[in-house]
C-alpha cells in the first residue's frame, strides 16, 4: 500500500494513495459537511456526483476550491477545511441551493429529519439573497400507492437516481431538464405508476429533502380505531422492532418488541399481532413448495421450476413482473407474510371471534414502502374488501406514537396477543438478507430428512455481501442456495436463471440492501451502514433468544393447520395463501 503525507487543518496525516480529501479528513475526525455525497460502507453503494459543492476546501497552491468528496489527496498537500474563503464559498453555495427551494419547512413531511434543513442550520443561514428572482419550479405532486414525489423540493443531489439505476437497476427515474427546472423523475414526467418503479422505496430512503416521501395513512388508521363498528387488528413486521427505537433516540440495534406492543395497545388497536406468525406460515407453504419441486427435479422433471425463488418481498415481485415476466412461474407462489396475515386474519381469525370481514380493519406496520402498493393489488381482496386495509411504515408508526404523546422510551413491555402473535426465531430473521432462506432450510431439513437439526444457525447464509452462495448438506444431498439483496444483485442471479445456467436449487431475493432492515420505510440511515448492521445483529440476537426457533414447531401454526387449513399446500391453503404473477413489461406494439 503506497501512502502519502498530507496536512489538514495544520495536522499531519498519512493516508493511502487515492484517498479523497473527504475520507482523509473523516479519518482524522474532521467532518467536512456534505450534501449530495452518500456512502453505505460494505454495501458497495456510493453517490458522489460532486454536484452540490458544499464540501469545498482550500488546497494550498490550487487556484480554485476543491470539492473534497471527489478530489484525491496529493502528496504534501496542505488543506484547510474552514478558512474564511471556504466558509464564504460554502455559505454562497448553500444560498444558491436554497434560493429556489420551497420555504414550507413547517409542514414539510421531512421537517426535523431533512439533510438540507440540517445543513442550513449548521451553516447558520439566516437569509437567502436572490430568492426573490430565483424561479421555483411548479411541478405537480405525483402520488403513487407508496411514494409521493414533490419535485420542487429536489436539489439534484441525484442520490435517488443512483439508487434506482445503479444499485437497483430499475431505471424508473432519471434526471431531466436543466437549470432551475432540473429534477429527477420518470420519463416524460409521467407518474411513477406508469414507470417500471418497484416501489422498493430506496429513493425515499436516501432523499435528503422532502422531494421523496411516503404516502401517509396514519390519519385513516386513527379514524378506523375510533370507529366503534370496526375491530382493528395490527401486525408488525420483523424488521420494525429492530429500528423503531431509533426514532426515539435509542441506539441503533435496540430491540423494542415489548415496548412496541405496549405502544400499539395504547394507540387503541383491538388486537396486536405479529407478521412473524405469518412468516412462520410462509415457511410452511414455501418450504413445502420447495420440497415438492425439488422431488420433481430429482426425478428428472424438466418443468420442476428449480431454482425456486422466494416471493415474500413485494419490491422484488414488482421487479420480476416488469423485467423478467417470462420467468414468472419460477418464484414461489406463496404470498408475502403481510398478505398471508391479512388473508388469515380476515378468514380464520374473523370466524374465531365471530365478526364479518368487512367489520375488521387489518393494519400492517412495515419497514417497507412496496407493501403499501402490494396491499392494494386487486387479487388481494375479496369482493372489494382488501385483506390488508392499511400499511404504515416504521417512520409513520413513530410519528403516530409521537402524535399520541406516548413516552415510548419509558413504556413497559407487553406480549403480542394470541393466536396470531406467536412466532419463532425463524420468523424474526425474515428481516435480514438471507433470513428467509435460513428459516426455510431449517424447516425443509427436518421435514425432508425426518431428523432433528444438529445446529440451527446457518451462519454461512448470513452477511452483507450483495450476492452470496452456500451449499447446505441436507443429509447427503447438497442443497445449493443463492442469496441476493438489492435488485441489481438479483438481476445477476436472474440472468443466470433465464439463460438456464443457474446452479442453485433455491434463491432468496430481497429488494433492499441489507434486506428489510434497510427497507424504504425504516428510520433514515443518513448514509451510515453501521445502523443497518446493528439492526441485523439485533434480529439474529432475537432469534437466538427465542424458545422456539423452527417455524414448523410454532404451536399456533400447528393449530391453524389442524383447525382450518389441513396440510401445507392444501387446496384451502392454496386459495388463501398463494398467488400468481403478471406480465408488466413495457411492450412495443406495431401500429396497423
Amino acid at each position: 500500500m503506497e501512502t502519502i503525507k498530507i496536512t489538514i487543518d495544520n495536522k499531519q496525516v498519512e493516508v493511502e494513495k487515492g484517498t479523497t480529501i473527504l475520507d482523509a479528513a473523516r479519518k482524522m475526525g474532521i467532518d467536512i459537511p456534505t450534501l449530495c455525497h452518500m456512502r453505505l460502507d460494505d454495501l458497495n453503494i456510493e453517490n458522489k456526483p460532486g454536484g452540490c459543492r458544499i464540501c469545498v476546501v482550500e488546497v494550498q497552491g490550487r487556484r480554485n476550491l476543491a470539492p473534497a468528496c471527489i478530489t484525491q489527496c496529493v502528496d504534501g498537500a496542505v488543506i484547510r477545511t474552514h478558512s474564511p474563503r471556504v466558509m464564504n464559498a460554502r455559505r454562497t453555495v448553500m444560498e444558491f441551493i436554497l434560493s429556489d427551494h420551497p420555504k414550507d419547512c413547517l409542514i414539510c413531511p421531512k421537517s426535523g429529519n431533512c439533510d438540507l434543513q440540517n445543513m442550513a442550520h449548521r451553516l447558520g443561514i439566516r437569509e437567502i439573497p436572490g430568492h426573490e428572482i430565483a424561479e421555483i419550479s411548479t411541478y405537480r405532486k405525483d402520488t403513487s400507492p407508496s411514494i409521493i414525489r414533490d419535485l420542487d423540493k429536489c436539489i439534484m443531489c441525484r442520490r435517488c437516481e443512483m439508487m434506482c439505476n445503479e444499485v437497483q437497476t430499475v431505471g424508473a427515474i432519471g434526471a431531466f431538464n436543466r437549470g432551475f427546472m432540473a429534477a429527477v423523475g420518470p420519463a416524460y414526467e409521467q407518474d411513477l405508476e406508469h414507470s417500471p418503479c418497484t416501489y422498493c422505496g430506496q429513493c425515499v430512503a436516501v432523499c435528503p429533502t422532502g422531494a421523496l416521501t411516503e404516502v401517509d395513512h396514519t390519519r385513516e388508521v386513527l379514524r378506523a380505531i375510533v370507529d366503534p363498528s370496526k375491530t382493528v387488528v395490527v401486525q408488525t413486521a420483523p424488521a420494525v422492532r429492530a429500528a423503531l427505537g431509533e426514532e426515539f433516540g435509542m441506539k441503533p440495534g435496540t430491540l423494542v418488541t415489548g415496548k412496541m406492543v405496549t405502544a400499539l395497545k395504547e394507540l387503541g388497536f383491538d388486537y396486536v399481532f405479529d407478521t412473524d406468525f405469518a412468516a412462520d406460515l410462509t415457511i410452511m407453504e414455501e418450504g413445502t413448495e420447495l420440497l415438492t419441486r425439488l422431488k420433481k427435479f430429482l426425478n428428472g422433471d424438466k418443468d420442476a421450476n428449480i431454482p425456486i425463488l422466494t416471493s415474500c418481498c413485494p419490491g422484488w415481485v414488482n421487479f420480476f413482473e416488469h423485467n423478467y415476466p417470462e420467468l414468472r412461474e419460477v418464484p414461489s407462489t406463496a404470498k408475502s407474510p403481510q398478505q398471508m396475515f391479512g388473508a388469515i386474519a380476515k378468514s380464520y381469525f374473523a370466524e374465531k371471534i365471530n365478526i364479518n370481514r368487512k367489520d375488521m380493519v387489518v393494519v400492517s406496520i412495515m419497514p417497507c414502502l412496496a407493501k403499501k402498493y402490494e396491499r392494494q393489488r386487486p387479487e388481494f381482496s375479496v369482493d372489494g374488501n382488501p385483506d390488508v386495509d392499511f400499511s404504515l411504515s416504521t417512520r409513520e408508526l413513530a410519528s403516530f406514537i409521537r402524535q399520541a404523546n406516548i413516552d415510548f422510551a419509558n413504556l413497559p413491555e407487553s406480549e403480542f396477543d394470541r393466536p396470531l402473535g406467536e412466532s419463532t426465531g425463524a420468523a424474526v430473521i425474515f428481516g435480514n438478507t438471507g433470513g428467509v432462506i435460513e428459516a426455510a432450510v431449517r424447516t425443509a431439513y427436518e421435514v425432508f430428512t425426518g431428523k432433528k437439526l444438529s445446529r440451527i444457525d446457518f451462519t454461512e447464509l448470513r452477511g452483507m455481501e450483495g450476492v452470496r452462495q452456500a451449499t447446505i448438506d441436507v443429509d447427503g444431498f447438497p442443497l445449493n442456495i443463492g442469496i441476493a439483496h438489492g435488485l441489481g444483485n438479483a438481476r445477476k442471479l436472474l440472468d443466470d436463471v433465464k439463460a438456464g445456467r443457474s446452479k442453485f436449487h433455491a434463491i432468496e431475493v430481497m429488494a433492499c440492501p441489507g434486506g428489510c432492515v434497510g427497507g424504504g420505510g425504516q428510520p433514515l440511515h443518513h448514509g451510515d451502514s453501521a445502523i443497518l448492521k446493528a439492526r441485523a445483529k439485533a434480529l439474529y440476537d432475537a432469534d437466538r433468544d427465542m424458545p422456539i426457533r423452527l417455524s414448523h414447531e410454532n404451536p399456533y401454526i400447528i393449530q391453524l393447520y389442524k383447525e382450518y387449513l389441513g396440510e401445507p399446500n392444501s387446496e384451502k391453503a392454496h386459495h388463501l395463501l398463494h398467488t400468481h404473477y403478471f406480465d408488466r413489461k413495457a411492450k412495443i406494439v406495431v401500429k396497423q
Partner: protein
Amino acid sequence: MSTTIKIELRQQDLKKIHEICDSFNNEPLELINILHKTQEHFGYLPAEIQDAVADKLNISTAQVYGVVTFYSFFTMTPKGKHPISICMGTACYVRGAERILDEFKKELGLQVGQTTPDGKFSLSSLRCVGACGLAPVVIVGNKTYGRVAPDDVKAILKEYE
C-alpha cells in the same frame, strides 16, 4: 395499479430506429449520436420513438428522456412546415435579435420551441450561423434573411401564407 406500458409505432418507423441503433452497434454510449440521427430522420423525438430507442439499446426510457430534455437541440414537438430560426449569437444579439424574436413570438403567438396549431410555423433560436455580416439573421426553411428589422417580420411571414 401499475399497468403494462404499450408503445405503438408503425412497422417502417420501428425498422428505421433499429437500423439507426444497429449502425451504432446498439452502444448506449452512442445515445446522443443515435438521437441525432433519429431526429434527423423523423424531425423530432416523440415519446414513442424515445421508448423504441431505449428498448433497442436496453437502457431505461428515463435515461433517454434525460438526454433529450438536457440538450436544447433535441425536440419532442414536431417542427412546422416552415421552421423559423432566429440567430441569437453575439453579433445578431447586439444588433437587436431579441426584438426580432419578440416580434415573431407576438405575431405567431408562440414561445421558442413551439409550433403553431396548424403545423405551419415553428419557432427556435440558434447560436451563430456564420453570417455575422448580415446580422441580425433569420432563417425560414432554407431561406436566409439578413439585416432584419422588427418591422420586416410581418412581411416575412406573409411570404409563406
